């Protein structure tokens, strides 16, 4: 039994240290989400958090869709981590259903784009 003493102690100490560790916070302060909803870009779809997919934490425009920052159609938004939640079962980060996204109609068009209001820190739209 003596042969297992130090190994067992190491395991007990490791378990105790982990038990006293506070839960991890989100990896990033802000997250980027891209619009992957119906291509009609209707107001109800653009404002629906379920239509937004976490694409990057770095604002990397190399991941589609590419946003040219022309306010015609919704493209990409930046939101604080507090407005997102991580689902460990599916393995994705998504917008909380309570996240407020405000859309505005593009002049001379039926499509909607996002304004940097509500819970949206930054809005990048496209033509």
């Amino acid at each position, binding site marked *: 039994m003596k*042969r*297992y003493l*130090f*190994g*067992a*102690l*190491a*395991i007990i*100490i*490791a*378990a105790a*240290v*982990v038990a006293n*560790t506070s*839960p*991890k916070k*989100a*990896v990033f302060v802000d997250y980027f989400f891209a619009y992957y909803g119906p291509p009609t870009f209707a107001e109800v779809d653009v404002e629906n958090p379920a239509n937004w997919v*976490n694409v*990057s*934490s*770095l604002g990397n425009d190399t991941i589609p869709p590419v946003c040219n920052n022309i306010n015609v159609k919704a493209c990409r938004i930046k939101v604080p981590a507090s407005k997102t939640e*991580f*689902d*460990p079962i599916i*393995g*994705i*980060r998504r917008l909380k259903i309570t996240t407020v996204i405000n859309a505005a109609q593009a002049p001379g068009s039926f499509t909607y784009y996002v304004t940097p209001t509500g819970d949206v820190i930054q809005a990048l739209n496209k033509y």
Partner: protein
Amino acid sequence: MNNITITAELKQSKNKPGIPANSGNKRLLEAISVLYIFLFFYTALSKTAFIGYTIDVLNFTPFFKEIPKTTAWSVVVIEYIATLLLFFPNTRRIGLYVSLFLMIGFIAYIIWMMIYAPNLPCTCGGVIASMTWAQHLIFNTVFVFLALWGILLMRRNKHV
């Protein structure tokens, strides 16, 4: 008298496979194994407890973002296996080899992250995640040498 002592040590080591006859080496090997047991069990348990965080980081990591869940759980399972192998003297030798290869793998991951995603945190688990990439590289290199030392200690004893 000396012959009697050596014979007694050899007998003892035969009864306890995986442990070198020399008591100094034996203690050293025990210490290396205990350090590794602590490290692997601590990081595996920490990753298990915060598996969502681990997967979340891997979601943004080049290459691993394709298989974040599989990667996270695979590493955790291998770490638990390494802990078990190191815990039992009979399997300590293979445990040290597994630890060595795991550490080399982690070093490759660190170098990969230093090149492609230096601003991302490490998915290492526990307080080790708060190290910088450079500190982490040094830390892992030390553990690689410890594993090599342990393997060497075991190899020197023919009867092990």
